[in-house]
């Protein structure tokens, strides 16, 4: 027998009370008259220490009552008791983990898995309790652990395989949670899966409770041959004034034999664009480049497919082909600027196709409203900012979301920045710092976490230190608002700074881009830096051409049903909520409000989601292409026993365990409830004590 609260045994000290009561003779206050003390006087007087306990039966009853009460409070439980454990000892807590990843679509794996789950449900005893967990890369309880086998069977019949990838850890963690909370003696997790190796990593943390065992049910087969289109890329180019698009697809062969004469096709909105025949080595990949073509001036659904195999879900790759996006930049030069002042700038922006830059030059003094029409970025290249109406227009352009790049050079003076631009530029143009004597200086980036410079964070991703700056201008900050300094020269002067103004952005480079004050334009980092800078200033965000199954999209920012183009991802203004109809690849429709939690759409299915406004049934719909993850295409398996041993405590993976090993002492004590019997016994003893005590007192009278 063990005690749950042994500290209560300290209450046994109360035994002193009856001992003292029965040892100590209560002396009556009033003297007892007696004829003569002749004989009493002869008897030697004895102190209480030498006295014996009187009324032994009463003493024993009182002591027993105290002992029983103390024992009841100490909450005893029997280690070997079978009280309340007989049923639990026989019963099982079963967690059925059913793999619903898309690899289960291979052959008849899913049918076998469902059949195995049904067998488990059918084999449950009357006292068993089972729950169903469906898992892929996430796990969810499809059936709560209730004592209703029929419900489990129904839940199994309702289960459908998904498009997710296999991850055992979430499912095992859920099973761990269920089994941990179970008080049943035999606890099992039955894992029904094809046991893909990609679904398990040694770093995953999943461990079933001690005493629980994992029963793997492998419904896979030895055949692991599989071919898949794992990736598609769009290579945009220009042919004259026309955009040309070339689609590249990566084909993988996960089998052990060479895939010969594999036909790879490209369809666009159902129309075959091109097809190629390739050979793919066993365990290897190959890239197929389709013939370039002119993309349509609208969004189109493209599909790269290969001939179907046992696992068809990864044999087609869908993507969204949007018209190429263009960034329009206007360069404002000093009226006295020589030809070629913006040569490096123009040439750098003219390179590249994603997005394509269109660049034009103007004198800063000849700016009119039409020049800002459709512009994304304005570059003030070592020139005074326009004044008057032009200046106001440029200011409104920035406040409305446009980007402004200001470079300071030899022609920039303190007067170059008029006062109406004070809130934009937040300072004045200072003096020239000449570092020729020092053979120039370098700039050091102070904030690589900034979106503009994040691209250059890692080594060999762009070396700013190779650029030498011989002259630059000081930027004197004024006002309360300060520049967000992104880079400084070695003397601490600002080299690159940014300020957010209204919806737009302003970036200042304190050394010109003319290759006279520095050699930055001829450095390798210049081109990507400039492209990154213009995209940052324009708020450019390339649209996703496809999503992976399981991803979650926020319908409030995607898609924008009212506009398209460069800023299609701009958030709709708050309060301007829309009701959208989402049609899944399986044809299921749901209405979602972008102002509620329903705006988060989980892309459960593979295929094409269509989203349109609820009140505009005939209107255009946005397309979301969803593909399965290529990680699931690799059908290589892990040894189920290896997985079982990895997630179970040593020694408990096989056979049932005893109840004593699984139930906590608290659970055993609660089930045995010995304290209750002890309390009843104490009550009976106290009743007997009362009766006996009354009799003794009555007899004494």
């Amino acid at each position: 027998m063990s005690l749950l609260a042994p500290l209560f045994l300290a209450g046994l000290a109360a035994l002193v009370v009856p001992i003292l009561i029965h040892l100590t003779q209560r002396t009556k206050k009033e003297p007892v008259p007696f004829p003569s003390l002749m004989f009493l006087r002869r008897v030697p007087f004895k102190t209480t220490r030498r006295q014996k306990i009187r009324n032994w039966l009463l003493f024993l009853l009182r002591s027993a009552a105290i002992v029983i009460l103390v024992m009841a409070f100490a909450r005893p439980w029997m280690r070997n008791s079978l009280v309340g454990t007989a049923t639990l000892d026989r019963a099982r807590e079963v967690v059925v983990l059913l793999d619903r990843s898309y690899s289960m679509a291979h052959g008849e794996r899913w049918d076998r898995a469902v059949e195995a789950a049904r067998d488990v449900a059918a084999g449950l005893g009357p006292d068993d309790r089972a729950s169903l967990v469906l898992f892929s890369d996430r796990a969810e309880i499809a059936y709560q652990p209730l004592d209703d086998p029929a419900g489990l069977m129904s839940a199994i019949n309702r289960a459908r395989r998904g498009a997710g990838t296999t991850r055992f850890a979430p499912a095992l963690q859920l099973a761990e949670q269920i089994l941990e909370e179970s008080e049943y003696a035999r606890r099992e997790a039955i894992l029904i899966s094809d046991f893909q190796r990609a679904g398990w990593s040694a770093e995953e943390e999943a461990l079933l409770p001690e005493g629980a065992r994992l029963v793997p049910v492998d419904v896979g087969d030895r055949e692991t041959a599989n071919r898949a289109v794992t990736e598609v890329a769009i290579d945009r180019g220009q042919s004259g004034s026309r955009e040309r698009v070339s689609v590249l697809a990566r084909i993988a062969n996960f089998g052990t034999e060479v895939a010969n004469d594999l036909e790879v096709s490209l369809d666009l909105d159902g129309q075959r664009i091109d097809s190629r025949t390739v050979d793919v080595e066993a365990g290897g990949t190959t890239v197929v480049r389709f013939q370039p073509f002119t993309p349509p001036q609208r969004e189109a659904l493209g599909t790269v497919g290969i001939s179907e195999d046992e696992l068809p879900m990864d044999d087609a790759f869908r993507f969204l082909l949007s018209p190429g996006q263009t960034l329009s930049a206007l360069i404002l030069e000093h009226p006295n600027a020589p030809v070629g002042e913006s040569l490096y700038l123009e040439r750098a922006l003219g390179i590249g196709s994603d997005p394509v830059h269109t660049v034009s030059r103007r004198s800063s003094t000849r700016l009119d409203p039409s020049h800002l029409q459709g512009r994304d970025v304005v570059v003030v290249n070592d020139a005074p900012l326009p004044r008057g109406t032009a200046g106001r227009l440029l200011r409104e352009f920035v406040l409305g979301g446009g980007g402004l790049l200001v470079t300071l050079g030899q022609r920039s003076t303190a007067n170059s920045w008029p006062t109406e631009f004070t809130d934009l530029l937040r300072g004045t143009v200072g003096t020239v710092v000449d570092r020729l004597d020092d053979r120039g200086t370098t700039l050091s980036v102070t904030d690589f976490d900034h979106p503009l410079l994040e691209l250059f964070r890692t080594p060999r991703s762009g070396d700013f230190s190779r650029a030498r700056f011989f002259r630059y201008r000081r930027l004197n900050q004024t006002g309360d608002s300060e520049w967000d300094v992104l880079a400084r020269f070695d003397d601490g002067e600002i080299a690159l700074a940014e300020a957010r103004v209204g919806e737009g952005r302003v970036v200042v480079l304190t050394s010109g881009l003319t290759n006279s004050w520095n050699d930055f334009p001829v450095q390798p980092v210049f081109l990507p830096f400039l492209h990154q800078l213009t995209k940052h200033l324009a708020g450019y965000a390339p649209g996703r051409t496809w999503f992976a199954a399981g991803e979650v999209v926020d319908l409030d920012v995607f898609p924008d049903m009212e506009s398209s183009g460069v800023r299609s991802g701009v958030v709709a203004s708050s309060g301007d909520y829309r009701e959208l109809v989402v049609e899944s690849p399986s044809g299921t429709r749901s209405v979602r409000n972008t102002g509620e939690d329903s705006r988060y759409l989980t892309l459960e299915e593979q295929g094409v989601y269509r989203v349109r406004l609820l009140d505009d049934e005939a209107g255009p719909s946005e397309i979301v292409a969803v593909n399965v993850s290529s990680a699931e295409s690799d059908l290589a398996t892990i040894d189920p026993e290896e997985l079982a041993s990895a997630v179970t405590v040593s020694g408990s993976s096989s056979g049932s365990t005893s109840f004593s090993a699984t139930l906590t002492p608290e659970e055993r004590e609660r089930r045995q409830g010995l304290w209750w019997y002890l309390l009843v016994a104490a009550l009976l003893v106290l009743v007997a004590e009362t009766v006996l005590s009354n009799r003794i007192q009555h007899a004494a009278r």
Partner: protein
Amino acid sequence: MKTSQFLDPKVLARIDNLELLARTVVDGFINGLHHSPYFGLSVDFAEHRQYMPGDDIRRVDWRVFGRTDRFYVKEYEADTNANFCVLFDVSKSMDYGSKEITKLDYGRYLAACLSYFSRTQRDRVGILTFDSAVKDYVPSSAKHLDIVLHTIDNLEASNPGTIAGPINDIAEILTRRSILVLISDLYEDPDVVVDSLNLLRHKGNDVIVFHVLDPAEIEFPFSDAAHFQDLESGESIPVVPDTLRDQYLALMNEHMNTLEHRLVTSRIDYCRFDTSSPLDFALFEYLARRHRLARVR
């Protein structure tokens, strides 16, 4: 109704009139003696014997002379007209009673009954009470029954008592041989008691000791510790009855046994009563003693 029940001291305690009480007890007792082997002890004819010179001529049985022509003298048993005196210990210790009646009450009933009974035997009755000294003395007389009963009725126990001193005085007071009945709880050393009573005995008195005790003194039924207070001296001592009981009872029994042994050895009759005993027990004891005394005579 059984006699023994009727003579229960607890029942008799409800009778205020001591004479009525004594008559009730004695008459009932005598009625019960119709089947007793002790009937007719005192005045009955015993035997004839041949006339001897010096015998009273009035005791010659002339009828026998007429039939046999010889002189025979009639002799009777217990034809005594003896003095009967109760020596009543009225010390404070006699005023103890754990039940309804005290030892003093019990002794009072006993004395009344014995006096009344003796008077019916035509003895002269008297009483002498004492504690540490002689208090009341009613000389034995055939006419003193009322005074004796009145004296018994007015007995009070208020002072400490002894045996030796008063007995010596009594020995001086009693000049005629008497039947002396001592009623006492005898809280005295047995040697002192016996020596004192021997003084009476040696003066020709027949002494009968009625040792009256309360059941609590014999059984010591106390359980709770308490201070026990001596009724006579007022002294109190702490007593734990459970631990003292055995030794007390041993001492008490030794005391009683010693008394009995010593008194019997000294030819003094000894009877021990507890106050729960029926009064006819005492009368039986008394009559048994009288019968024996008559035969001896």
